[in-house]
């Protein structure tokens, strides 16, 4: 696939509302659980086509290092571009909706 095609493909997918998210948490702590719950609820409410991967940095320290994950919990939006990082227990829903550019399900 050429760069041009990749770009077009990604635009098409993002128009459909396709999202790739990764949520990094540090072990099973109240903060982690809260973040997972908040993100899942948000995606249920707003997102149709969505991949969410939950990663425990204690199980995958290399990923944490390579991804420069300093704070926990951290939510990374890999797709659609641009890549965005959110930190915290994801309790500020409005900020997330704005930041992720989510549109409510019709």
């Amino acid at each position, binding site marked *: 696939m050429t760069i041009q095609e990749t770009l077009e493909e990604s635009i098409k997918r993002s128009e459909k509302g396709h999202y790739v998210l990764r949520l990094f948490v540090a072990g099973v702590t109240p903060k982690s659980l809260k973040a997972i719950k908040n993100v899942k609820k948000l995606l249920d409410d707003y997102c149709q086509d969505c991949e969410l991967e939950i990663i425990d*940095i204690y199980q995958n320290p290399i990923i944490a290092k390579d991804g420069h994950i300093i704070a*926990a919990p951290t939510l990374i939006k890999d797709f659609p571009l641009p890549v965005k990082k959110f930190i915290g227990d994801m309790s500020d829903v409005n900020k*997330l909706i704005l930041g992720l550019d989510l549109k409510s399900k019709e």
Partner: protein
Amino acid sequence: MTEISTLITEKELKKCPTGIEGLDELTYGGLPQGRPTLICGNAGCGKTLMSMEFIVNGATKFNEPGVYVSFEEKSEELITNFNSLGFDLKHLEETKKISLEYIYIERSEIEETGEYDLDGLFLIIGNAIDTIGAKRIVLDTVEALFSGFTNEAILRAELRRLFRFLKDKGVTAIITGERGDRYMTKYGLEEYVADCVIMLDHRVNDQIATRRLKIIKYRGSKHGTNEYPFLIDEKGISVLPVTSVGLDYQVSSDRIKTGVEGFDLMLDNKGYFKGSAILVSGAAGTGKTSISGHFVDSCCSKGMKCLYFAFEEPQNQIIRNLKNIGLDLKKWVDKDLLKFSANRPTHTGIEMNLVGMHKIITEFKPEIIVIDCVSNLITSGALLDVKAMMIRLLDFVKMKQITTLMTDLSVIANINDTEIGISSMTDTWIRLINMERNHELIRTVNIIKSRGMNHSNAITEFVIGENGIKLKEMNSTKIGWKTGE
């Protein structure tokens, strides 16, 4: 530094040697072991270099692996930058002696949505420490966190937790911090790192820059309290705790010939004391450098090592000129008995001159030092500073039992002091005056003082010819006219 080594035996606090020349003496053994130390200062003052030396020395000299966590420079950049100092970070990293961690924080990419902690950072640091079994760590600089995260309350709590975490890990840590307006550091890091704080400074006075270091606090240990100049050169940092040198040194009663027959007669027929400071003062063209030349030649011929600080002329010019009065210094240079250090004192600040001179003296280990001429040093600093520097230098060389001959260009030959007022520091003071008589200048020499010996009081004429300096009166009864007689 025997005195200092006895003082290191403080039992209460374990020290972690930095391996940085001078710093371990100032801190009586090094940084507090297993605790964090804060190094703060403005941009470009040498924080990163000092921290890196701590890690590299730990790995190479003390068998203590170390982790360098950088928030500003990538590992590859660090490797390249320190290559020029001869630190092979790449090799050290490959052999698991050190670990370079680059942590990237970009404010614009991060949005905060609720409560968080810095477990990721703890994990990365903890992992790096455990992987190589590190005993030392540097965080350069954690202040970057403040630009990346806006919630200061969380951040401060996390920093507190971080330092406790490092203490629990038992690693000796260096935290660097940029100098701030209100606090020692921009974000008041000193609040967390309470054990030892070192301040670095890079100041420009009269267009001359000097680097200085000060230990602000060191809990549970004594330390040098002054500001100490330090030098960054091709081998890294060296600090000189020169002001700690006192008046407590050994005194020798051995004598050293002056190299001029008549002068020996004037000085008890024996010459200078070994390890004393000799001052030769006189106006331009009175023969100061010739006297120095004679002294150097005579000492070298006895196999003593001489170091010649030339602040006025380059080495080749001095050698050429002295050849004309029958002194061949070239052969001593070839035999490595004589070393010239010729540079303009204005090149660096007064403290740097001192540090530089110390370094050469320590490396070359001379028995004789000639400084030609000290009044030139005035161009590199204020009068008081120059005097203070000379006191320190003389104390230093006297402690090492090095005989020092200084020349001084006195504009007014009759005034009873030198331009920079160092006469009180010298043991023997020889004054040269050109007197006018019958339409010609007559060279004269007299000894104003010479501590601890019967010296001549006569004003003696001398000539400088093809074979060097010759005194007119070689009769010992005449020029041997003694003090108080």
